[in-house]
């Protein structure tokens, strides 16, 4: 599906935004942002703080009016509709629970505005409280809840409206790691259960990779790449995405030549490294080569045969995590590289590697990417 077809599809069925622009004084918070989300999809807007992801979310929710561009939902243009008219609900980062209302009244706030009959409100609120394991919390006030409980109430307060799209603004950002991981799984379960489209804003790349069907990576108001987690991780379109998602080793140098779909980069004082060119890679341009730690091998001997990019260095540190071991290797240039080795067997050759030992680090050329920028 091309982007144009995708947008057309989103316009008619799900959600689509086209060429959104929002300026705050001289700052362009959102700069020509377009994407579409299919019904039932778990879509994540991922980026560092100030990348424009929250502003984009607020535009979809109707809390911010864009300077340019359009928002479509289910075939209708809703760009200038007030928030209360949109079939879209938001889970706020700080929960925004009404402090003067009980848990029950907080969750019932939306249904009451819609004029649901009292019986239905009672049934639905009970059902949703049960869904997030908060039975018996009806009469409590928000100040009596823990962070995780507040988050659950905020979630079902929005979900009970059965919106076409649920917007989540860093909903787990303020919670401890353990509760966060618990709620991640719960969110995925709930999303599958209710089948509502989720747009999930986060700065945590791990969270986005785990939860989302598709991810849009944003920086400085622009979308850099949209794709499923695998594509974003394995085929980043530029250095920023490669750097922001996961761990990566970078080598800076100059392109020597491009040949047979591969590029050769000269890294001063180190080596010449082959990699897959991304974008307009030409000889003579400054470039960075990226390679992820888990795609590299580490050994006490140089590789025998095969074509590899090979570097030599000294083991500076080893971090054993049970599942894998991370080696920090210092290269002759002083640069450090990180290499992951899976703990397949306790008798493996790599267990003989120890501190300050001379090692070879190598990988297949098609595992590294070459970016020019």
């Amino acid at each position, binding site marked *: 599906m091309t982007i144009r077809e995708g947008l057309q599809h989103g316009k008619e069925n799900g959600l689509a935004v086209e060429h959104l622009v929002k300026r705050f004084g001289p700052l362009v918070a959102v700069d020509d942002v377009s994407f579409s989300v299919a019904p039932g999809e778990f879509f994540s807007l991922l980026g560092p703080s100030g990348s424009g992801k929250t502003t984009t979310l607020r535009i979809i929710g109707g809390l911010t009016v864009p300077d340019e561009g359009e928002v479509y939902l289910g075939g209708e243009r809703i760009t200038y509709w007030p928030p209360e008219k949109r079939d879209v609900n*938001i889970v*706020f980062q700080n929960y925004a629970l009404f402090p*003067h209302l009980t848990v029950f009244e907080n969750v019932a706030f939306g249904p009451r505005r819609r004029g649901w009959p009292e019986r239905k409100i009672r049934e639905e609120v009970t059902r949703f409280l049960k869904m997030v394991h908060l039975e018996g919390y009806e009469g409590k006030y928000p100040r009596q809840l823990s962070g995780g409980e507040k988050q659950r109430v905020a979630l079902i307060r929005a979900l009970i*409206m059965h919106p076409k799209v649920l917007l989540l603004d860093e909903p787990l950002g303020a919670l401890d790691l353990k509760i966060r991981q618990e709620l991640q799984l719960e969110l995925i379960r709930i999303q599958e259960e209710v089948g509502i489209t989720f747009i999930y804003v986060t700065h945590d790349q791990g969270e986005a990779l785990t939860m989302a069907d598709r991810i849009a990576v944003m920086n400085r108001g622009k979308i850099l790449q949209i794709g499923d987690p695998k594509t974003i991780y394995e085929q980043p379109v530029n250095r920023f995405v490669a750097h922001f998602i996961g761990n990566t080793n970078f080598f800076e140098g100059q392109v020597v030549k491009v040949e047979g779909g591969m590029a050769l980069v000269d890294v001063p004082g180190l080596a010449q490294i082959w990699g897959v060119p991304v974008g307009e890679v030409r000889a003579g341009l400054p470039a960075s080569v990226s390679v992820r730690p888990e795609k590299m091998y580490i050994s006490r001997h140089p590789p025998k045969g095969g074509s590899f990019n090979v570097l030599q260095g000294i083991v500076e540190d080893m971090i054993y995590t049970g599942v894998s071991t991370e080696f920090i290797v210092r290269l002759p240039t002083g640069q450090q590289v990180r290499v992951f080795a899976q703990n397949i067997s306790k008798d493996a050759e790599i267990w003989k590697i120890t501190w300050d030992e001379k090692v070879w680090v190598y990988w297949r050329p098609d595992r590294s990417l070459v970016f020019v920028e």
Partner: protein
Amino acid sequence: MWQRLRRASFWLGMYTAMVMAFIIYLPILLLIVFSFNDSKIMSLPWNGFTLRWYRIAFSREDLLHALFNSLWVAAVVTAVSLVLGIMAANGMAKYRYRGRSLFTGYIAIPVVMPWLLLGISLLLFFNVIKVPLSLFTVILSHISFDVPLVAVIVAARLHQFDPTLEEAARDLGAGPIETFRLVTLPIIAPAIVAAGIFAFSWSFDAFVVTHFVIGSQVTFPIWVWSALRYPKNLPVINAVSSIIVVVEILIVYLGERLRRGEGGGVLRSND
């Protein structure tokens, strides 16, 4: 170290309590005690308990008329000041725009303006625009200092108000007016109640400004001022003042309870 600190703060507390008792509460207590003294002069010896002064107070037409005027003026002033003051507070606390601090100063300055200056300038103003002096000009004058008072108190509360609560209400289907009624108002209600109490008592107590702009009408403070010229009125003034003191203490107590009861009880919205 801690021991000594605790002892020091204990004595500081005692000292403060004593000073407060001596210069504020003792005079008020004397006022109330002497309102029950069966004597025309306010001094010892104690001549026996009486309710005579209260009976006289409630039978004096001029006093009742003045009291009624004051209550009526204060009620109108409070209502108008609350509406205008809350609107001004919104402008001071909620929105960001150029000249906001200028606007805040512009609204807040009358609160600290000397009464005498305010009174003279209002008198001149009404003269220039040829509005005859009456209770109407009194109401206008009181509004001029009560609106800023309300605005300052409510704005302080709005500053702590989380604007995403209003966004959440809008997002869940409430229109702008419904959002104010169901979310903003209940949350800032304690500040509004406090502002209302202050606004009412400022208007009720206002003597200096009222004196300038009242013409031939009478409010309670004006009546007290003119009645003081005749010493025989003193016990009656005591009696009325005692009632007012007790009523005001009750109102402040109720206001405080409302403020504390935030989230539960009286102010909870149920629809």
